[in-house]
């Protein structure tokens, strides 16, 4: 009865717990500054969610998700930057009405590819479509030629490096190494004050749950099982009549689109976008979040992202030099000891205990067992 195309009963409980945690517990217990930090961390959760589909299920390790995070983020930032660069705001520039960094770089007119970003509708479409189509092109070029595994991972790294160099090098068009800063309003609504930050946090959580639902749908569709099958025996899937490349392209593209939504949320919540979120190091960090949370678990990846980022913030404040070593060590430890991450620890050690606890309560004859346990019989 509770089984449907999106989740089964235990997953529904997991999703409700996460929703309660993000929507009720965190906003009630954290101040606005810390809540905004959570919003920043959650932008990476979108990437981790995509990696669960692409890497966990499909076995396609991408070390270049920062590319898509960046593309989504830059699309959003371009819109916000244009709005912040109205003629009144920029009248001290030699060319008013264009973003400040363009003026500093002696540009006298808005480049053609910036112009459509005056429209919010176009921007929203671009946030999803630009990275989606880019992933489609990379995926088609690679997977149709049967490039996979380590080679694919290295190529995605190269793409991340290239995009960073491109953004830094084309300062007049992209804001260069500083990125796009001083983003102010969204359709006239100031995104900087505390109440806006809180609103944006809830908006982001809402988007995250939409993405979780999409991921759940993919996972529960036959496509999810084909991804698992492909990860294990690619040839068997191919000789069962499937075009393996198309399924890989799909998984890679959907991961790219999730990452891009995360990037756009980053630009909104944090108020700037820079190439330091595009390159190799952030891309690898995003893989670590997924690995720590559990690459086979949609919800695990989100907890993993939050946990690693909390640790990062608190540890890097105290031991800035040691943090990177700590992160690397954590990654190695998780992969060696708990290949399925936190979610694996949960399902192997914690869940069985809870089940036993519930079962022992259920066995008590004096009918005080609560009804939720009584309905607990498997639906199929």
């Amino acid at each position, binding site marked *: 009865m509770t089984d449907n195309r999106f989740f089964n009963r235990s997953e529904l409980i997991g999703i409700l717990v996460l929703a309660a945690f993000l929507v009720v517990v965190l906003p009630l217990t954290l101040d606005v500054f810390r809540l905004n930090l959570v919003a920043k961390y959650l932008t990476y959760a979108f990437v981790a969610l995509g990696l669960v589909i692409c890497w966990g299920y499909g076995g396609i390790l991408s070390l270049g998700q920062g590319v898509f995070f960046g593309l989504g983020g830059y699309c959003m930032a371009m819109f916000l930057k244009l709005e912040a660069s109205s003629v009144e705001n920029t009248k001290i520039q030699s060319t008013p009405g264009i973003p400040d960094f363009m003026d500093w770089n002696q540009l006298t007119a808005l480049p053609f590819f910036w112009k459509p970003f005056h429209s919010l509708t176009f921007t929203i479409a671009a946030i999803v479509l630009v990275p989606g189509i880019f992933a489609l092109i990379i995926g088609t070029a690679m997977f149709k030629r049967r490039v996979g595994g380590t080679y694919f991972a290295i190529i995605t790294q190269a793409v991340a490096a290239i995009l960073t160099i491109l953004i830094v090098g084309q300062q007049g068009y992209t804001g260069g190494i500083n990125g796009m800063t001083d983003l102010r309003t969204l359709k006239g609504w100031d995104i900087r004050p505390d109440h806006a930050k809180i609103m944006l946090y809830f908006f982001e959580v809402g988007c995250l749950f939409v993405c979780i639902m999409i991921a759940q749908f993919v996972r529960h569709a036959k496509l999810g099982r084909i991804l*698992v*099958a492909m990860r294990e*025996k690619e*040839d*068997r899937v191919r000789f*069962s*009549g499937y075009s393996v490349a*198309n399924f890989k392209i799909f998984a890679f593209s959907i991961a790219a689109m999730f990452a891009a939504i995360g990037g756009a949320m980053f630009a909104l919540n944090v108020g700037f976008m820079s190439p330091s979120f595009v390159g190799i190091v952030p891309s690898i960090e995003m893989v670590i979040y997924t690995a720590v949370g559990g690459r086979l678990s949609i919800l695990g990846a989100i907890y993993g992202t939050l946990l690693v980022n909390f640790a990062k913030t608190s540890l890097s404040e105290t031991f800035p030099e040691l943090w990177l070593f700590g992160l690397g060590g954590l990654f190695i430890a998780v992969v060696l000891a708990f290949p399925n991450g936190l979610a694996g620890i949960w399902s192997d050690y914690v869940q069985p205990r809870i089940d036993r606890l519930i079962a022992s309560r259920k066995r008590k004859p004096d009918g005080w067992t609560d009804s939720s346990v009584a309905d607990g019989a498997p639906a199929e």
Partner: protein
Amino acid sequence: MLIGHQPKEFLLAVEALTVSFDGFKAVNDLSFYVDENEIRVIIGPNGAGKTTVLDLICGKTKATSGSIQFRGKELTRMKENEIVKAGVGRKFQNPSIYDDLTVFENLEISYPRGRSVFGALTFTRDAAVRDRVHEVAEMIFLKDKLNMSADLLSHGQKQWLEIGMLLIQDPDLLMLDEPVAGMSVSERAKTAELLNRIIKNRSVLVIEHDMKFVEDIAHKVTVLHQGQILSEGTMEKVQNDPKVIEVYLGH
């Protein structure tokens, strides 16, 4: 026999097939024909090119020259998944199944519907799928193991599962690479029984070393040696062929 009868259409016609790997001809100018509803066994010493022939037919390896006609379609120019759709199914030498999925899910993936990305997203496990999976599971002796994870099956059961995954595709030509290798005596007997049952309305191309098993199932035997045909005919004829005895059976 009948005068004026049309020349017989072969299900599979392999003609002048050659593949060379860096100058080494693994299959050299090979021609053979498989009839409708025939069980053909390919035997031969190691390195004779048996598996390569199956690889060529199913599209895993591209031919250097020659032609493979299946029901009038030229397979050498088709992609692997198109060859499957044309009606050719192939089982690999080592049991090639999905360990992390259940027996049911293994069979379901091979069910010939929803093979595009969109189709796989919207696929529903309806009664037709369930019935077919149960039907095939019964045939391959795994009826009561449907909800078991496939990695818990024995080696022989994994081989049957893969045969089942092909059966559910309902191919016109079924190609099996050493289906009884590593099986116990009783499993072999069951597999022979299984193969004899599933050949109705389809042809089977089998690679096998186990001569007892070959004798049980083969209508016709092709002996390969160094990428070429050494001998072809009934089991009896092949067994008595001095050339075959010298290079293969005599050992």
